[in-house]
């Protein structure tokens, strides 16, 4: 197990550098003048250009720029935007809201998805099963931004049940509808995955043994069946949490949540290269680590799986 973790961590290193180099190259090298439009209608003063060029080593070839940037990053210095704001501070201010939203989404998709999946998996081909199959098919097919707009329009504007936008500090009560929107597609996956898993395992030998022993149905389902069927679902939820924390650009945009997705979108549009790279580095790291945790969780939950 220890060797496996070590090997996975070592494998993360090239992936981490590869991803960040790719993003760094895309953000810094391709579009022309990084100072275009940075100082309003007129050209930037020479002193400012000089200062920023020195600060970001813009005269050096790209690999050296990248090296300087990474050296700073490893000491915890994310650098500053062209306007002089601390990028580490921007991330620290926005990230809690994104994490809150991700957990709300995860809770909603876990609770609803699991319930629907268990109920339909236990009674295959029943009315409920078909209902779940059809409704998850619809959820899968509707892009997030359509769900977001329609719910915002109906609940927020027409019926005035929720406030259409989320206020600055994003209280949990206002995040429920955005969380539902964000988690809707994964909810469908969770339901279908649980359903397949339950249906497959209910034919397993140990379930038949449990029934033959005369255990009450509740115990068979709750202890024997559920525990084994939930392993793939939990790993899916873990991977999904990594994805949710990285990509709520659309949902945060629609509902006006001050999160990392909105921040990175703003930075891309205003060509704040340093901010984009900084946020992407954090997101990629979270995503990679979540995937590692999920793999380890798999072994912890299922004793049949052993990593060397």
């Amino acid at each position: 197990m220890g060797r496996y973790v070590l090997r996975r961590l070592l494998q993360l290193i090239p992936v981490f550098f590869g991803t960040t180099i790719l993003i760094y190259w895309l953000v810094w090298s391709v579009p022309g003048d990084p100072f275009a439009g940075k100082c309003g209608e007129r050209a930037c003063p020479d002193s400012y250009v000089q200062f920023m060029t020195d600060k970001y080593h813009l005269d050096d070839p790209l690999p050296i720029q990248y090296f300087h940037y990474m050296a700073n990053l490893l000491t915890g210095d994310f650098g500053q935007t062209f306007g002089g704001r601390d990028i580490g501070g921007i991330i620290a201010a926005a990230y809690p809201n994104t994490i809150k939203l991700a957990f709300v989404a995860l809770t909603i998709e876990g609770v609803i998805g699991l319930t629907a999946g268990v109920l339909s998996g236990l009674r295959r081909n029943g009315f409920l099963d078909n209902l779940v199959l059809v409704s998850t098919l619809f959820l899968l097919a509707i892009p997030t931004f359509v769900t977001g707009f329609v719910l915002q329009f109906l609940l927020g504007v027409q019926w005035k049940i929720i406030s259409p936008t989320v206020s600055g500090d994003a209280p949990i009560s206002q995040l429920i509808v955005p969380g539902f929107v964000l988690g809707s597609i994964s909810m469908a996956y969770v339901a279908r995955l649980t359903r397949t898993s339950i249906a497959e395992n209910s034919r397993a030998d140990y379930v038949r043994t449990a029934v033959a022993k005369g255990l009450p149905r509740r115990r068979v389902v709750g202890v024997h069946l559920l525990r084994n069927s939930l392993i793939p679902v939990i790993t899916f939820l873990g991977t999904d949490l990594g994805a949710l924390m990285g990509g709520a650009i659309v949902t945060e945009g629609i509902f006006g949540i001050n999160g990392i997705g909105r921040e990175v979108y703003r930075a891309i549009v205003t060509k704040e290269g340093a901010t984009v790279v900084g946020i992407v580095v954090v997101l990629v790291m979270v995503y990679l680590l979540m995937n590692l945790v999920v793999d380890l969780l798999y072994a912890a939950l299922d004793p049949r799986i052993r990593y060397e």
Partner: protein
Amino acid sequence: MSDPTSGSLVTTSPGEQPGLVAEAAPAPGAPPQQRDKPRGLLGDAWHDLRRKPIFWIAATFIVLFLLMAIVPQLFTSVDPEHDSNLSRSLVGPGSTGWFGYDLQGQDIYARTIYGARASIIVAVVATLGTVLFGSLVGVIAGFWGGWLDALLSRLADVFFGIPFVLGAIVILFTFNTSNSGRSTVRITTLVIIALVTLTWPVSMRIMRSSVLATKQADYIVAARALGASNTRIIFKHLIPNCLAPVLVYATILVGAFIGAEATLSFLGVGLQSPVISWGVIINESQNYIRVAPYWLLFPAAFLVTAVLSFVMLGEAVREALDPKLR
């Protein structure tokens, strides 16, 4: 489905042995004279598909959307771009304009019909690109293994590690801003390239794992013992037997890409104004949702129906190809 890379998690079971399908007995309902002629993998799947109503529903819709993309004139005689008339700006649905008119007084019905073309071209071409490129890399990595496999797998991990929407925005924003004018072909190509760049690792992994599972099969060993070359083994034996999981993924991917293109266009980084696509129309409408909800809802309904049809087709194909579900 705004993130095509997540589709692979549930919809395919890697490592399944598609080779088994070919040997499966004919379905019990089959007429007896067909029993003599053994069907191949695809023939068997087709036999299974023909009896599924869900397949026919999905196929009908897809044919309809393809017709819309190829000959939009069949559905509307209105010019979607140049027939604007400000006197009917934001007029709601009525007997002349079935879906109403947008801010410029353009017919939303006509624009939605013409929007099918760009959406479907992007999705189909990007799917072909992803599947061909990803499978090629997957076959190479799985067949030769060793350091080549390690290198290609890490490379795939790099692209897989970038969150989809974020990566697409960065790519499109970087390359889309040059002043080369707003050429339709250029914008469309860029969007396709961005989609392929960020999703090829998924089909690579699917292909690689099924190549790894098939590589040890007896018929491959037999072919090798008979002196077949690597090229012959790959094209005659390996690829036909590893195709099923990728095929299923591809069908669902078309739907996912239609959604992804719309998401990117909606964010303003994908297709842009001279091009008409469902995402572009939704992007134009988003600020007027309170006064003209129909402007958003009709193209969104088309979008959802198209994605749904491809996902449904993918499900049907998967059930037909999966021996475990018989």
